[in-house]
């Protein structure tokens, strides 16, 4: 470890400012992709995903009550495509202190979304006890890497109309999240007339993969070429 000079400190500060500016452009900023999503599992896959599609999975968990408050926690579907997270006391504690069971089910049928394009599966969340008055839970939905990203989370309750509930900004690429004050059915989507713009922003991962493979080939080919060139030069010098 060396003594940091003013020049060092100034460059570090510049790097920090550059990072803040770059990270501010995307939410959440720096993210290391610890668990990049597996191929999205569709209830009704778009044509290009039909041959390789696997059905989505449901999720279920029981949450204990401690001291008259329902514990905090998260419930995920088994494939990680949908989750609900909540803080302590978010759900109303049942009489007698019995635990709260929460289920997440992918849905094949749902009300007509009208002018909204649904870009994910629709997941219905049910619980044996409601979310308390003034309390909220966070619903997080994965979306496919191969299609335009949803801009908002939409929800409906009991077969009613779809309502936009917002987008809190997700903790990870390919996930969208929103806060809700009730359980119900949720999906990621965007207005149908905004589809083209969304598609231009995120049209899948094929381009970076192609570029990355091209760079890999150049690097891998460049090493032996560099060795051969140096050897050739050395031989020439000796000769």
């Amino acid at each position, binding site marked *: *470890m*060396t003594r940091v000079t003013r020049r*060092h*400190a100034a*460059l*570090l500060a510049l*790097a920090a400012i*550059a*990072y*803040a*500016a*770059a*990270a*501010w*452009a*995307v*939410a*959440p*900023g*720096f*993210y*290391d*992709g*610890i*668990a*990049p999503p*597996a*191929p999205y599992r569709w209830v009704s896959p778009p044509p290009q995903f039909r041959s390789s599609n696997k059905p989505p999975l449901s999720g279920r968990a029981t949450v204990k009550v401690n001291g008259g408050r329902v514990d905090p*926690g*998260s419930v*995920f579907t088994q*494939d990680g495509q949908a989750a609900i*997270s909540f803080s302590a006391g978010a759900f109303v504690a049942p009489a007698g202190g019995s635990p709260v069971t929460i289920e997440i089910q992918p849905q094949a049928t749902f009300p007509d979304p009208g002018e909204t394009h649904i870009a994910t599966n629709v997941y219905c969340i049910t619980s044996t006890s409601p979310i308390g008055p003034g309390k909220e839970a*966070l619903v*997080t939905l994965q979306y496919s*890497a191969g299609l335009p990203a949803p801009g908002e989370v939409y929800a409906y309750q009991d077969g009613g109309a779809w309502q936009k509930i917002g987008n*809190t*900004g*997700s*903790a*990870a*690429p*390919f996930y969208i*999240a929103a*806060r809700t004050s009730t359980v119900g059915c949720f999906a990621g989507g965007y207005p149908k007339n905004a589809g083209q713009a969304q598609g231009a*922003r*995120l049209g899948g*991962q094929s381009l*970076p*993969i192609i570029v*990355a493979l091209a*760079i*890999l080939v150049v*690097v*891998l080919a460049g*090493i*032996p070429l*560099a*060795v051969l060139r*140096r050897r050739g030069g050395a031989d020439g010098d000796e000769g």
Partner: protein
Amino acid sequence: MTSGGLAIVPSVKSVLVLAPVGVRAIGLAAMAVILEWARVLALRTPDRQAVTLIAGGLALCLLGVGRRPAELGLETSRMPERLIGGLALAGVLLLPAAVRWGGGPTLAPEFALAAVAVSVGEEIAFRGAMFAALEQAYGPAVAVLGSTAAWTLAHALSHPPEFLPAVAAAGLLLGAWRWAVRDLVGPIVGHVLADLAL
């Protein structure tokens, strides 16, 4: 295997051991990127993801084998300052997310362990071994910029294109710390905390 096939062995040995320091540095960068891509591609099957992540992190750590701790920036002197530096780096890395935080799912314990393995592995590979090799071959500017470029390339398969500038900027910040302070403990601490938080 024919004698013609065996003839390649000395060439491979030359690349790995006897090649000039610049070639070795580039080879190290290529190996680190390939290890990262292999991990990401392996993760596309849903089975044993945490084990895959941990194995990927450990494989990256192997790129630092054979170098003295001082070369990697892993000396133990002035450890409190290094740890505080790591906290400061974590603060900078997490600040843009923290001010906009809307909550998120909790990281399961096995993925938390995996996050630590991957973070440590990436730091030892990119800001440790690769930085040292590039600095030895081409000087500190190339070490900072080269390790940042390789780190960004390594994330090209796991991140959508619009995230890559933030990844590159994070690499530049951690690389600048490695150069300015001659320390890798800070980047390891900062990176681990950032990955656990996000």
